Every structure is written in structure tokens, then in C-alpha cells.
């Protein structure tokens, strides 16, 4: 599946979240934690129906927002043992904005063996920034501070 398939409207501002860290464990150990439903429940969230098999669908129950029931619908897109795991990550409702707005994204885990263990790269791709983004960025620096504090609060609640 190509990234282009996710971007029907190139006018929209689409962004990715990338986290890249080295862990002092073998790719085999990391893989186990990424692909065992029981272990996923311990570090991510408790999945329903997860199996590391291409085409399998599963869900996560998260905090509802507005018209959205909080269910994240996932589908395994790619499995390359000890190297790569890709799943679709969808949710939200068209009647919401911000948290709870439509979400059609893809989560990709890539593992690379390195001297110190395993390099884990997470790419959560396909965030569509609101069209009225300029309205937000035009606000004062104080506003940004508020948003940062809010991030911390929402982190505590999740």
C-alpha cells in the first residue's frame, strides 16, 4: 500500500509523527512485545482481536469524544517477522473537530538490529491538519503555552 493512496487531496496538509529510539534488546524480544496481544495490553492498550497476521482486524477502546465512541479500528497491513509491522489506525466522526475528528492513519513499526540492541522507528502517518490551522498559529505565544499545558493534562487522563 503506497502512502499516496492515503492522500487523495494533496492540497491538504498531511503530517506524520516519527519516533526513533535505540533499545538495549534484540529485535526478537522487541518483536514479541509488539506482536503479543497480552504484552501489547501492558504497554499500549488492550487490543480486541489482535493477531500479527496480514488482513486481521482489531480494535482499541479509547476515550470517547463528541459524536465518536472512542473505538480505534485497526487492520494489519504488513508483517515481516522481527523487522516490520504495519497497521491501519482509524477512528473519529465527521461531526467532530480536534480530538474525535475523523482519523485515517497508518502506524508503522520498523526494527533494525544495531550494536547496542534494536533501533525502533515508529511512524504514525496521515494526520490531516485543519484547514483553519492559520487561525491557531496566529494566536499569541501565551496561547501556545496553554496548549502545551493541556497536552500534559490530556496525557495524564489517557
Amino acid at each position: 500500500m503506497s502512502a499516496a493512496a492515503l492522500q487523495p487531496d494533496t492540497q491538504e496538509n498531511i503530517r506524520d509523527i516519527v519516533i526513533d529510539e535505540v533499545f538495549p534488546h534484540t529485535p526478537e524480544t522487541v518483536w514479541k512485545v509488539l506482536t503479543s496481544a497480552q504484552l501489547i495490553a501492558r504497554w499500549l492498550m488492550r487490543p480486541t482481536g489482535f493477531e500479527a497476521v496480514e488482513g486481521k482486524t482489531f480494535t482499541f477502546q479509547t476515550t470517547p469524544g463528541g459524536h465518536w465512541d472512542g473505538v480505534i479500528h485497526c487492520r494489519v497491513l504488513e508483517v515481516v517477522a522481527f523487522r516490520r509491522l504495519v497497521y491501519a489506525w482509524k477512528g473519529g466522526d465527521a461531526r467532530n473537530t480536534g480530538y474525535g475528528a475523523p482519523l485515517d492513519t497508518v502506524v508503522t513499526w520498523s526494527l533494525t538490529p544495531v550494536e547496542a540492541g534494536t533501533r525502533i522507528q515508529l511512524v504514525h502517518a496521515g494526520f490531516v491538519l485543519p484547514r483553519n490551522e492559520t487561525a491557531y498559529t496566529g494566536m499569541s505565544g501565551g496561547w501556545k503555552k496553554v496548549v502545551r499545558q493541556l497536552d500534559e493534562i490530556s496525557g495524564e487522563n489517557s
Partner: protein
Amino acid sequence: MIETAPHPVTAVMRALADPTRRAVFERIFDSKEVSVAELTRGSGVTQGAISQHLKSLKQAGLVAERAEGRNVYYRAAPEGLEPLVTWMDHYGVFWRERFQNLRDLLKEIDP
């Protein structure tokens, strides 16, 4: 279907679009609880104007109030800002935390 109530994001944006009102909100946000008199002091506007701003902020769900005797105290209700937090903001924080969980769990399983 026609939505009668203004969209939450519109209400929040409208409430914070006014610079004075935004300043009032930020002062409330920075204090645990604050009275109208305290907010008026040093603001350069009248207590009546501050009260009007507080009313708008309350309607937008951004502040909450508590009456004690003759005084009313205001505190921030940051959950009212939620319509402005994008998925990108949400998951930026979410994945950072989950990476830390992952690190902790791996350490426990494979010390």
C-alpha cells in the same frame, strides 16, 4: 440535520479571539483559583468588563466558578480546550508515553 448549538470549536475560538479575554483566561489558567477583584487589579479594565469576559469564558466551557460567601472564585476548565487539540497533538504525547511504557516493560521482561 440542523445543529442548533454553535460548534464547540467555534465557541472556544470566539471566546479566545479577544486579546483581553484571552489574557483573562491565561491569568486564570496560571492561578489555582482567582476572584473577580484580583483579576481586575492591574488589568487596566473595569470589574464590569472582567465580569463580561468571565461570562463568555464560562459559556465556552473554559472556566468554572465557585461561590464562597460574597466572593466568587474562578478556575480554568482546560477540558473546554479539547475541541482545539488536534489528533497530531494528542498522538504526539500518546506515543512518547507509550515508548516509555515499552522501554519499562522490555526492561522487566529482558533485564
